[in-house]
């Protein structure tokens, strides 16, 4: 497999320099790098249809043939060696390039002027122009296959497919979903899905990689068809006749003149096509890409330059944006009155809010009010909302919804290494010798990040260990997969640590120099023998030893974890145990190693970073530190309350106690997302004032007094911070609908009604203010974040970011990290005789969380219309459950009805219910136990019983759902099979018809 250095997110370390000669001129190159990269760096126009710098050589198109030391060779497949002599434009090279491209045109009908892909970036069009092709010798031959429109998001036209294999390469080696192949042995090769000819029902996850990299219009986003071009919505019959006519007169006209017309049409499209950079609003990977729009119509998402993702996306990032144009979007404030909700003006809504907040503040004090920010809002919005709470209202009852997920991981890291963020970048995870994934379904929750692990595992044998209750995709791929009993991760992690110490395998030098508290830590591990761990966790001693040896022998270990660790009563402690193990084995302060809690939402990291927490100012500056508080008082011009406030879990309890009377909640369907929904709903109903900022009228809004319409991420400027601590800018694509406003403007309106007198006009002002008060982002400026530029905090005043933490020291007074001693405490709730099943729950790939946005995307809603519960075959057999059977799940807290899917992804009496919510949310079933330190709900410690209902429906996963498919893994496009075809000869070979590089006929 290619080891050529590629640009983009997975760029390797630069190789040793040497000199070669290209077209008579000396050029510096790296030994072993791909020759085509060197040629491109020189600015030499060389055709290269199948080559993509972010995928490495594919070698199917042959258009990059050059002479290397006198012999014809593909520039993409040739590694640089010192002293090479390269000719890119010799008669022989040019003739071979022309012949190669002529063959490509035999597979592709050029009708650029009426093609939706004619946007200036079509590789086939541009190569026709580059090679000055006037006429083709190889006649176009359609293939005997129909166009496939079965996928809701994209279509495949085999008759336009040039068989470059970029899509296959992307699917096999970048996304590593391993769905696409080409049947090279067939008389009429084409791209296949799971070895067959229909996309729907295959294992295709609609990630969009194939469409993004397709160099022509064979694979196209459906949203582009009939919309992108000026003439492409003409009746099909008329279009075909126009195409036939142009083809007919082409011998006289030549492609040159025809391309002039198509380029004029492409230039005219610029008027109606807008391209705006944004950052994905969904998960914490932080993919960034250009959004192409025509008015409010989203033409396509075009990823390429994002530091976190390059050309990669998942189904949500690539195709999940229609929700912004849903008719269900809120466009005006809503007020509850005696007859229900009615639309109103902003003035009336704000009058009501002002009056009530002032009355409550006067009668019960500012701490009777709570503010909950959103991890989907921007950094600037979190900053101004927490400022609104503290400075305008006078309370530290400020929190954000990362409380539901990642606060324990942050705590675990604060305790041990001092920063509550990923140790490095996604490139470090890809470069590690070993990746351990604990309690995380990365392929569905962080798809693009998971692709880097899958690629490293497939291409260079990176070791992969997965510990999870459920056998998900990463578990299937793992070298070691084990299934600990629920709530026992701390035990087996600590047992491994003890085993490492007992066998003298720990990194003594590293510990001596960089870590405090080793002896106490060693003593604290006394109970954690391998026998104890085996008995409690169900993981065999042999496996634990194996894992230990993998860690100590790996060239860098990254541990990734998510809700399977954090959403437990001991989530903070287990996170600490993970960090302890990494410190013990020297897996910090170096590339390709460290702790990687996988942030769930697009701005989970940023919401906490920018101070939406009850006990921290922005940058995790402690609220109780008088000097820090004075700094913010000076910066904000107000006195600030000195005591930490309530987190969102405590706020719900305070409502019940009657001490919290008002809540302002931004961008969070707390009813369905918080645990114990019935308790939350009851708490909401007790509020005297409940204000929600929202895009849609969610279940939470049903309890509100006032609902304010908010802008989506495509409708505002700002920044998000992803799981790599990477701050990235997003730009407004279009205005919010109706009277909706960005959350930062709404916060300012409320703050000013409370006497603030703020006049921010743009989010950049908020960022600059936050940076001026926060050493962690001291050097963050919008100018430094222009376009695709990013910064990873800490950011020094001069703008230097920190891709890798702890390089110099740990952020403790003595510069050293700390072991944190732990004891295991039982989960807060476990199955018993009455509630005998363990309830696990989590996301599905295609929906985001409960689905408030993704259910408004037609294709996603069709793909997975309802939640479902996975039942093991053994449990299904015992209880008489079949796929499609309606079940009533009952817990101590509530009930939910959902259809079953019998699957061996779960085992025994462990069941798994998906988070996407229709009528019933899984949180009707979860209780109010929380992590002991952070109050993150223990969603993963639920016990239920099942009542099998008489009704049976269809499989809740429709036939077209990708989970019904079967992958066809192979090592890339397997071009060697093409070369073995009897009708294949290398272009430019002796004995073939010579094609003269074309000039217009005279």
């Amino acid at each position: 497999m290619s080891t050529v250095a590629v640009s983009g997110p997975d760029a390797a370390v630069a190789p040793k320099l040497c000199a070669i000669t290209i077209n008579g001129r000396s050029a510096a190159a790296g030994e072993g790098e791909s020759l085509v990269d060197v040629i491109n760096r020189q600015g030499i126009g060389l055709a290269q249809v199948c080559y993509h710098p972010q995928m490495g050589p594919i070698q199917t198109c042959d258009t990059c043939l050059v002479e290397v030391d006198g012999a014809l060779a593909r520039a993409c497949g040739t590694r640089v060696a010192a002293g090479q002599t390269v000719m890119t434009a010799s008669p022989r090279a040019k003739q071979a390039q022309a012949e190669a491209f002529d063959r490509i045109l035999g597979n592709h009908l050029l009708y650029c002027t009426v093609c939706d892909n004619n946007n200036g970036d079509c590789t086939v069009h541009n190569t026709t122009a580059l090679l000055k092709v006037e006429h083709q010798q190889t006649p176009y031959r359609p293939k005997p296959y129909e166009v496939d429109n079965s996928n809701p998001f994209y279509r495949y036209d085999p008759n336009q497919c040039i068989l470059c294999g970029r899509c296959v390469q992307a699917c096999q080696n970048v996304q590593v979903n391993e769905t696409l192949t080409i049947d090279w042995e067939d008389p009429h090769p084409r791209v296949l899905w799971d070895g067959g000819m229909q996309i729907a029902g295959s294992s295709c996850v609609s990630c969009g990689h194939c469409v993004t990299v397709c160099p022509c219009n064979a694979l196209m986003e459906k949203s582009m068809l009939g919309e992108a071009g000026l003439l492409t919505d003409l009746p099909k019959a008329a279009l075909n006749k126009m195409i036939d006519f142009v083809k007919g007169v082409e011998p006289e006209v030549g492609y040159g003149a025809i391309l002039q017309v198509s380029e004029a049409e492409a230039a005219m499209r610029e008027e109606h096509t807008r391209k705006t950079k944004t950052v994905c609003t969904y998960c914490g990977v932080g993919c960034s890409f250009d959004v192409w729009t025509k008015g409010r119509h989203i033409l396509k998402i075009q990823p390429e330059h994002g530091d976190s993702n390059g050309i990669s996306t998942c189904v949500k990032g690539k195709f999940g944006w229609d929700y912004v144009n849903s008719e269900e979007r809120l466009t005006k404030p809503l007020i509850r009155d005696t007859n229900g909700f009615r639309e109103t003006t902003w003035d009336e809504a704000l009058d009501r809010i002002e009056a009530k907040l002032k009355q409550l503040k006067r009668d019960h004090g500012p701490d009777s009010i709570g503010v909950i920010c959103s991890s989907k809002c921007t950094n600037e919005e979190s900053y101004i909302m927490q400022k609104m709470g503290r400075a305008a209202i006078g309370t530290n009852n400020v929190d954000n919804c990362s409380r539901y997920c990642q606060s324990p991981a942050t705590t675990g890291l604060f305790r041990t290494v001092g920063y509550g963020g990923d140790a490095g970048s996604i490139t470090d995870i890809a470069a590690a010798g070993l990746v351990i994934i604990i309690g995380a379904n990365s392929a569905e929750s962080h798809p693009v990040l998971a692709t880097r692990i899958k690629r490293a595992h497939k291409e260079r044998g990176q070791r992969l260990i997965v510990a999870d209750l459920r056998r998900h995709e990463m578990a299937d791929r793992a070298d070691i997969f084990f299934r600990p009993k629920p709530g026992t991760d701390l035990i087996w992690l600590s047992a491994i640590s003890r085993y490492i110490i007992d066998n003298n395998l720990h990194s003594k030098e590293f510990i001596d120099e960089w870590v405090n508290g080793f002896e106490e830590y060693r003593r604290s591990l006394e109970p954690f023998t391998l026998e104890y761990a085996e008995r409690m966790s169900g993981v065999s001693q042999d496996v634990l030893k194996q894992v230990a040896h993998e860690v100590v022998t790996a060239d860098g270990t990254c541990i990734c974890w998510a809700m399977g660790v954090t959403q437990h009563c001991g989530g903070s402690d287990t996170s600490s145990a993970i960090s302890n193990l990494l410190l013990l084995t020297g897996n910090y302060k170096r590339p390709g190693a460290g702790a990687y809690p996988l942030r769930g939402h697009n701005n989970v990291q940023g919401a906490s970073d920018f101070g939406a927490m009850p006990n921290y100012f922005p940058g995790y500056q402690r609220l109780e530190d008088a000097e820090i508080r004075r700094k913010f008082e000076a910066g904000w011009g107000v006195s600030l309350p000195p005591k930490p406030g309530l987190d969102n879990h405590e706020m719900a309890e305070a409502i019940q106690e009657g001490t919290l009377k008002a809540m302002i909640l931004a961008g969070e369907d707390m009813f369905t997302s918080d645990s114990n929904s019935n308790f939350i709903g009851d708490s909401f109903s007790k509020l005297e004032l409940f204000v929600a900022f929202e895009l849609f009228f969610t279940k939470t809004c049903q309890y509100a007094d006032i609902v304010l319409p908010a802008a989506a991420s495509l409708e505002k400027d700002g920044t998000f911070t992803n799981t790599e601590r990477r701050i990235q800018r997003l730009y407004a694509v279009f205005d919010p609908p109706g009277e909706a406003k960005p959350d930062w403007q709404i916060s300012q309106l409320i703050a000013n009604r409370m006497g603030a007198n703020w006049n921010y006009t743009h989010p950049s002002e908020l960022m600059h203010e936050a940076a001026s008060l926060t050493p962690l982002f001291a050097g963050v400026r919008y100018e430094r974040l222009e376009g695709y530029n990013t910064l990873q905090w800490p950011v020094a005043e001069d703008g230097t970011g920190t891709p890798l933490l702890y390089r110099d020291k740990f952020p403790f007074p003595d510069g050293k990290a700390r072991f944190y001693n732990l004891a295991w405490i039982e989960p807060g709730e476990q199955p018993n005789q009455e509630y005998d099943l363990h309830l696990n729950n989590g996301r599905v790939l295609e929906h985001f969380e409960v689905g408030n946005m993704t259910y408004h995307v037609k294709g996603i809603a069709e793909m997975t219309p309802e939640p479902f519960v996975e039942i093991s075959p053994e449990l299904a057999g015992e209880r008489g459950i079949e796929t499609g059977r309606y079940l009533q799940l009952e817990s101590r807290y509530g009930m939910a009805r959902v259809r079953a899917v019998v699957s061996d992804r779960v085992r025994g009496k462990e069941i798994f219910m998906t988070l996407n919510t229709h009528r019933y949310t899984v949180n009707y079933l979860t209780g109010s136990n929380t992590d002991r330190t952070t109050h993150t709900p223990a969603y993963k410690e639920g016990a239920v019983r099942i009542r099998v209902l008489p009704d049976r429906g269809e499989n809740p996963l429709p036939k077209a759902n990708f989970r019904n498919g079967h992958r066809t893994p192979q090592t890339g496009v397997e071009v060697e099979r093409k070369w073995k075809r009897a009708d294949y000869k290398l272009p430019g070979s002796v004995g073939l018809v010579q094609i003269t590089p074309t000039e217009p006929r005279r």
Partner: protein
Amino acid sequence: MAIPLQWKKSDEARAADNAADLDRRLEEARLENGEALIAFYKLIGALHRKQVFDMLTGAVSARDSLIEKATAGLDNPEIINATRNVMTMTRLLGGTDPEVLHAFADNLDAMRRQPAPGATPGLFATLRSFLGRDARRALVTMAAVLNAFGRALRVKK
């Protein structure tokens, strides 16, 4: 005590909102582009008086049908051949030195101004007229043209 209440915007309310939003945007555009609008009104007034809009309205509403009719015969082999032949003729004319044709036309004019011969020339007189330098030059050129045409016919076969 707030009980949960559902809410859904009615289609009528949505339509009214869309209309209000459009009104607002139209008003903003009107104020921003006032001078341009005044010039535009003058233009459309003139076009209207010439009944251009009636024709355009008809063309726009029948766009698809018009395009289908206009393209109906486009893939007809005769149309394609004729178009190609026109292009080829254009190429031929473009490749011909206009000075030659100009001089030829002048010579024809001069010839027409000469009185017509009284009797039909005899055989030897006719043959003698082919022996002149100018005639020989033209004959060779015509032979070359005939050869090129003959080669083209051979390729076609």
